[in-house]
């Protein structure tokens, strides 16, 4: 209490001593006032999280493992912060006992523990970012529902990959052409420049007229342009070669990615879209999308339903595949018969036409003779009948061909789907984990709410840890004896508060 200010009244007889309004130092009072605002701030944050978390119905809030939260890291960090609370209080005790060396030692230990906490925090944040779990504009990769919008987002991402690869392949082709063409141009340029220089000196030797002046200026400009182009090529050629080498090095990988993306696009995503749009069964419409979401990013609690659906789908598709093959065989047989029939009919038609022709010729020769009018009329009727039959058979052939095409397409789709099902079943931890580059959208119920609140709370807490560490660094050069114990006490109060917040964050974020 050195600030009592009695020194101003030395000259009188009365020695006045001011009592402070509060039974503590001003510094401590200010720290406590500051902490009271902090308490309200974090109480609001944590309270808001509690309400959102516990208001979410069962299975609509991500479990720790759904969002790559590891309990042991949280527990470890809790332990680290508890230890740091003890060490800062020991530093204070040492300072009060006037042992500045030991006080500094404990302060350094506290600082190191704070750094360890932040290190683990960084590890955790990195794993979230790598898995695409973070708030983002215009849209994060987290989806609330495995609905048609989710499937459309998957399609967009996969076709994006395919077209990126196509673009890169085009660029590679262009560059492959450029590294042949450009050196040829580069070789030709010095000769062209020499020619121009000869022309220039010739023009210089001649008498100068306006025309020659103009021609000279023109030649000089051409020389300058060509030289500039030569210099440009000197840069462009190595750059093209470098880029080409890079593209060639990644060509196989790129091609593989494009093939995987295309395969998924055709047999997983488009299949899902078509089934979701056309199936008469509402449960199937729902489940086919849920199964896709499960393959992209498996949530443990949907495992049973998704796998059961996929097994049923596989079985019914195998049956359908057999039926379709049979149907196709029947249709092909039918088409053959129809074609044969058509050929026969055409032949017969030709015969009848010939008969009609010969009959009419004979009729013309014996113009007065009306002995065979009925047979001519019969032939004409027969011809008409055959023509009608040909038209009908042709129509039937067309219909049959259309049906065959349709059956074939469906068979192709079903076979593609059947081929991808076992492949997907083997992808144990989801497509996003299997192919890190694929970065498909994920279905995590309340995932966005979780990511926002998680980063908000742990982020604010981490900022407080950083501020605490800065204060520790500022205290370190001081001699931490009994006179300075107040500094350590106030810093300690703040640091304990940081620990206090974590005491609530740990179970809320890691264990619920």
């Amino acid at each position, binding site marked *: *209490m050195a600030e009592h200010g009695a020194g101003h009244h030395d000259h009188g007889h009365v020695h006045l001593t001011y009592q*402070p309004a*509060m*039974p*503590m130092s001003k510094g401590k009072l200010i720290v*406590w006032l500051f902490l*009271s605002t902090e*308490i*309200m701030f974090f*109480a*609001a944050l944590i*309270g*808001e999280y*509690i*309400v959102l978390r*516990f*208001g*979410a*119905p*069962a*299975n*609509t809030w991500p479990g720790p493992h759904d969002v790559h939260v590891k*309990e042991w890291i949280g*527990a470890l960090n*809790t*332990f680290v912060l*508890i*230890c740091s*609370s*003890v060490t800062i*209080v*020991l530093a204070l*005790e040492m300072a*009060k006992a006037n042992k500045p060396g030991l006080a500094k030692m404990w302060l350094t230990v506290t600082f190191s523990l704070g750094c360890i906490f932040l290190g683990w925090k960084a590890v955790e944040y990195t794993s979230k970012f790598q898995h695409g779990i973070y708030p983002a504009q215009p849209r994060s990769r987290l989806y*609330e*529902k*495995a609905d048609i919008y989710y499937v459309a987002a998957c399609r967009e991402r996969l076709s994006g990959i395919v077209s990126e690869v196509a673009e890169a392949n085009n660029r590679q082709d262009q560059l492959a052409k450029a590294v042949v063409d450009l050196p040829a141009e580069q070789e030709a340029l010095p000769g062209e420049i020499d020619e121009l220089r000869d022309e220039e000196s010739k023009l210089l030797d001649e008498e100068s007229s306006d025309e020659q002046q103009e021609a000279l200026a023109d030649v000089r400009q051409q020389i300058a342009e060509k030289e500039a182009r030569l210099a440009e090529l000197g840069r462009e050629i190595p750059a093209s070669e470098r880029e080409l080498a890079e593209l060639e090095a990644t060509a196989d990988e790129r091609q593989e990615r494009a093939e995987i993306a295309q395969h998924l696009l055709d047999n997983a995503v488009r299949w899902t879209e078509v089934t979701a749009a056309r199936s008469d069964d*509402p*449960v199937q419409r*729902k*489940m086919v999308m*849920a199964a896709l979401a499960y393959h992209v990013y498996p949530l443990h609690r*949907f495992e049973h*339903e998704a796998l059961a659906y996929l097994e049923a789908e596989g079985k019914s598709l195998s049956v359908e595949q057999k039926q379709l093959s049979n149907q196709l065989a029947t249709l092909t047989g039918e088409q053959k018969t129809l074609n044969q029939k058509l050929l026969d009919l055409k032949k017969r038609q030709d015969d009848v036409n010939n008969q009609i022709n010969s009959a009419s010729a004979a009729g013309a020769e014996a113009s007065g003779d009306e002995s065979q009018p009925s047979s001519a009329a019969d032939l004409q009727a027969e011809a008409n009948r055959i023509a009608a039959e040909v038209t009908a058979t042709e129509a039937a052939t067309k219909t049959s061909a259309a049906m065959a095409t349709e059956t074939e397409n469906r068979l192709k789709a079903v076979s593609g789907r059947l081929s991808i099902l076992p492949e997907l079943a083997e992808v144990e931890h989801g497509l996003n984990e299997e192919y890190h580059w694929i970065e498909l959208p994920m279905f995590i*119920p*309340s995932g966005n709410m979780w990511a926002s609140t998680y980063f908000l709370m742990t982020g604010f807490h981490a900022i407080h840890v950083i501020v605490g560490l800065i204060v520790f660094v500022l205290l370190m050069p001081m001699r931490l004896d009994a006179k300075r*114990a107040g500094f350590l*006490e106030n810093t*300690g*109060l703040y640091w*304990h*508060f940081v*620990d*206090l917040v974590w*005491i*609530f964050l*740990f*179970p809320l974020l890691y*264990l*619920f």
Partner: protein
Amino acid sequence: MANHHSAGHAAGHDEHAHGGVGLYLGVFVALCVLTSASLFTYTPFWRDHVPMHIGWTFMMAVSCTKAMLVVTFFMHLKWEANWKYVLTIPATIMSIFLVMMLVPDIGQRTNYYSRQRSEHAAAPLAEEVHEQIEAEQAEH
């Protein structure tokens, strides 16, 4: 935290009248034990034997106890004067009030779904599917 016997310490004396390394280590051990207790709720044994809401309540109770220990001993509130009540009691009341005010509309937002809310809310897959199955069966 309330310890009325030591609440009236005068300003200059409190710094020498409390604490002690032994006490701090005791609190440290208690904090470690409590942390292990809350971590224990994540074991399969606990999940299989204790209802979820009891687990949540237990963990919050453990957290509050830990917070109490830190505030009382590490932050020395045990040995502070009566101003500590001015600081802690209103803050506690306001925190509780904040949560209580949000419970009816936000916390229980999914208990009574309006159509608009249900369309824009996350819903568990299983329930929706089962509802649809039921609707299907009702139709036939």
